[in-house]
Structures are given as structure tokens and as C-alpha cells.
């Protein structure tokens, strides 16, 4: 197995865009020559139901077709999931957990047990509402991931939004996402 392999697990609710966010990371990785794999753990796809998606990133081709059991990074798109799902399940002690919340890491650590894992928070929904006018936390979550892992840069996210993403959406939406990415990068806290 490649030593450069990074395994990521996304927790969200149906309709929040966890799968789209995982796809965005995969696309950015592909644009910069990295190998990747992104897949949802699907099931009854009901809006609002807890869902899980996985992303693998590596410098070498990925041939492992199995669920991620020991993610180095866990992203939680909806803080209400913390009381429903054990988001740290299988994550090693040195894993990072990134939670979309307006609270600080110390505040949520008082309520939920994350063990020794690093906990980061980001008000991604708030940023999305401010910039996009909609509660879609994907883009700021991806920039938080960029800041914490260094797997790709804010500039690369911006390139992706302007080019790939820009093919499907009008400039106004693209620029709002770029702004969301910058705010996400700035506002993530440990």
C-alpha cells in the first residue's frame, strides 16, 4: 500500500452535498496529477438521513475497493450528527475531525468525546449563507480540508472553481464560491 495514501470520511445528511464535496476534492486531486477514489456508502437515499462518503488520495494508483475503516480525516457537515453517529469510529488517535459548527473546538469537546484526536471547527453553513445565500457547506469544508492537510492549496481550489466548476455555473455563483473558499480557509480553528 502506498505510503502517500490519505483516507477521508465524510459525514453529512442526504441533500447537504457530502457526495458533491467528496467529488470536488477528487476533481482537484485529478487536476494536479494525484490518484483518487471517491464513493458514497449508499443506501436508502432520503433527504436528511445520515450518509457517509469516502475519498482516497494517493500519489500512486488506488486499487483498493473497500470502505474506509480508519480515516485519517473525518469531515462532519452537520453538527447535529455528533449526537446520532459515532463520527470517530475507527479513526486512529492521530486523526483530525473537522466539524461544521459555529461553536469553537473547546466548546464541542466539552459535549462530545473525540479522544486524543485533533478537532477543528468551521462555520461552513454560516459562510455559505453569507456568500452563496444557501446553506450548502461544501466549498468552505473543502478549503478547511486544504488548510489542515496541505494536500492541495487554496489557489488550486480557486482554479478548480473558476475552471471546472465555472463551466457549469454562472460567474456570480463561481465568485460567491471563491469567496466562500477564502472565508473557509481563514475561519477554520483548532
Amino acid at each position, binding site marked *: *500500500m502506498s505510503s502517500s495514501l490519505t483516507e477521508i470520511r465524510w459525514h453529512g445528511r442526504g441533500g447537504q452535498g457530502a457526495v458533491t464535496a*467528496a*467529488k470536488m476534492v*477528487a*476533481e482537484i486531486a*485529478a487536476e494536479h496529477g494525484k*490518484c*483518487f*477514489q*471517491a*464513493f*458514497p*456508502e*449508499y*443506501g*436508502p437515499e432520503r433527504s436528511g438521513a445520515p450518509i457517509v462518503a469516502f475519498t482516497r488520495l494517493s500519489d500512486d494508483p*488506488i*486499487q*483498493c*475497493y*473497500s*470502505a474506509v*475503516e480508519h480515516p485519517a480525516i473525518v469531515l462532519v457537515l452537520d453538527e447535529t450528527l455528533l449526537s446520532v453517529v459515532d463520527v470517530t469510529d475507527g479513526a486512529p488517535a492521530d486523526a483530525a475531525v473537522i466539524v461544521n459548527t459555529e461553536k469553537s473546538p473547546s466548546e464541542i469537546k466539552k459535549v462530545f468525546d473525540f479522544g486524543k484526536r485533533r478537532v477543528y471547527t468551521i462555520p461552513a453553513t454560516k459562510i455559505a449563507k453569507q456568500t452563496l445565500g444557501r446553506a450548502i457547506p461544501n466549498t468552505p469544508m473543502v478549503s478547511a480540508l486544504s488548510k489542515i492537510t496541505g494536500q492541495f492549496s487554496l489557489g488550486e481550489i480557486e482554479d478548480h472553481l473558476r475552471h471546472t466548476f465555472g463551466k457549469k455555473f454562472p460567474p456570480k455563483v463561481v465568485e460567491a464560491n471563491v469567496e466562500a473558499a477564502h472565508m473557509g480557509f481563514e475561519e477554520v480553528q483548532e
Partner: protein
Amino acid sequence: MSAVKLENPALDPALLQERRMLLKGNHAVSYGVMRCRPEVIAMYPITPQTPIVEKIADLALTGEIDAEIMTCESEHSAMSACITASLTGVRVFTASASQGLFLMHEMLHYASGARTPIVMPIVNRTLGSPWGFWPDQTDSLAQRDTGWIQFYTEGGQESLDMVIQAYKIAENPDVMLPAMVCHEAFYVSHALEPITVPSQADVDAYLPPFNPEHRLDVDRKESWGNVVTQEMFYRHRRDMGISMSHVPDLVTKADVEFAERFGRGYGGILEKYRCEDAEMYIVAFGAMCGTIREAVDQMREKNLPVGLLKIRLFRPFPVQAIQEAVAGIPRLVVMERNYSPGLGGILHQELKAALFGMENAPLVHGYLAGVGGVNVSVDRIEELTRKALAETPVVESVWV
């Protein structure tokens, strides 16, 4: 049932070139189908196959696929439509999974008996009851007596490539049998990966147009499906068996020619990975093979001499190739994602039958490792391999 034929807009020539795309396993299949230029596509949706036919509908809208698209009222009708369309001498396509495949079952026998080389990807999914959407190969394996060729693939690229090869093998005049290309739900069907879509020119050069000797045509005055005598039926089934017996060599040849033209080869009937000096082979098919390859690397680093034997062709079951591949190996352990109640793991049982009478045949362990889509990780494979090395095999498949 409705059939739609659209006026095609002018195509951007760049779309005909080799394209590197980010595609889910199912969409990779759709692009593979596109390059094969089927003339009739009959479809009925079923999770988790639906993205294949949805993408095909998209590609027909943009003119990238130029086929008559039939949206049928059931899978049974979709297969019936495929059989009759194929008998008129055109290349046809459909896809299915799980419950939908079972509704087709009657017509699957008809398709092979009518010698229609239909290609149908199957996205392996659990069967109700209880209800689930998980990867499990029991759906397609339960069709193993229907006279269809069956390939099992481990990823989107291999599935795309095998759709192209499947047409070439199925339409060979010495074969003329339908083929399934099976990949698993979720781990493959919905995994987004970088995929190479070959150029139209290369696929056209590899896969000649379908031009069968016999076809339903009012000017030819041929017919199909008449009542026969016992002796005629006997000869017909014997002929199907002879056609099946041509398949393994043609699979090898198709793979070699594919590798020469496209630069990607898969080993044909089976693939051996790090099998040199192995004490034991892990035998598997489908998505688990990639994970097993990583597990083999991990175990080899710990000086555990094991390798992977990946079975790619399940029908016809390649008895000779398997016997040659395992000669001199003391043990095999089958890890599989399917279950026949009262029999066990289907690959385990077929493998043991294939080794019957072989001199110094290896001992065979059978582990029901991934039934119902249970995750089989790299570490789990190592754990099961060590378990097999430490115990004496039993006749039955084992719930691990």
C-alpha cells in the same frame, strides 16, 4: 413501451478522441457502450444499475450515441426486446441488477438459446428479502445455468474495457452467445475514478460491426424459435456447449489484442498476482481483488508467501486454465461475496469441482468473507489468510 430515435446534432470531433474523464464505474460502462455503437438499447431502471442507462440516455440526447432507445415496462420486456432486435442482426445492449435481473430470468435462457450475442452489465446487489442495496454477487451467479458468458471485473476501467471485449467474444461466429459483465454495487458502481475512454477509431478497428450469418429479414425468409423434436433439442444444447468451449481461448486472444491496441491487459481468463513461490493463493473475483492485491503486498513485506488468483471468466468455468494455474500450489483460500444456501460459496464449490481428479490437487478453504456487502479490508484479508494457513480446510464454506 416507447421507442425514441432522435435527430443527431453535429458532434464535436474531440468527443471521438481518447478522453481521460472522471467517471463512476457505472458511467464508465455507459461510455464503453457508446464506443461499441449499439443500434438498439432497451432499458428499465433498477438500483444500482440505473446510472448506466441514465448516462446512455444523456449520450443519446447529445448525439454521442446513435441508437434506438427503448424504455420498457419491465426487465422481462427489456430482455425480450433485446432478443428480437438482436435476431434482426443489430448490436443491442441492456443492463440490469438484482431483482430486475430475476424478472428477466425466463428470457435469459431464451436469449442464449436463440444465440443472440447481447451484452448486459450486471451491477451486483443483494436480493430481497430482507431489502438491501449492498454489493453481493449472488444475483448474477444465480444465472450461471442460463447459457450466458459471465465476466467479473474489479473496477470501472476494467468494466468499460470488458464491455468492448465482451461484444467481440460474444459475436464471434464460433460463439454467438450473450454475455454479462458483472461489477459490484457501490464499491465499483458508484466509485468516482479517473477513467480512459478509448478513441472511436481504435474501438472501431478492434470491434468490427456485427454481421451475423443468419438474421430475421423478410427477404431472407428465416425464422426462429420453432417447436423441435427431442433429438433437435439435444443437438441444440450440445452445440451451445461446443460454442461455450470456444470462449476461453477467445477471451485470452481478445485480451492480448486489446492490450496491443489500448495498452491495458487484464490477463484474459485469470490473473496471477505475486504468485511466485507462494504457499497459498487467495482465489477471488470482482472488486475484492484490488483489495487482496494490496493485502498480498502487505503480507509479502512480512515474508508471508501468498499470491492472488483472480478469476475473470466464470462462465464457461475455465477448468483447464485453473488447473494449470494452481498446479504445485499446496493450498487455496477462496474469499467471496455470494452465498447459495445449502451449498455455500459458489466460487468455492465450483473451484473444488474443477480440481476433482487432479493429481496433487491443492487443499481448498472457502470463506464467506463479504456476503451481503460486508466490508473486506486489507487487514481483514490478512487475518483470513493467516487463519487459513493455520487450519485444516473443511468441505463446507465457512462463515468467518
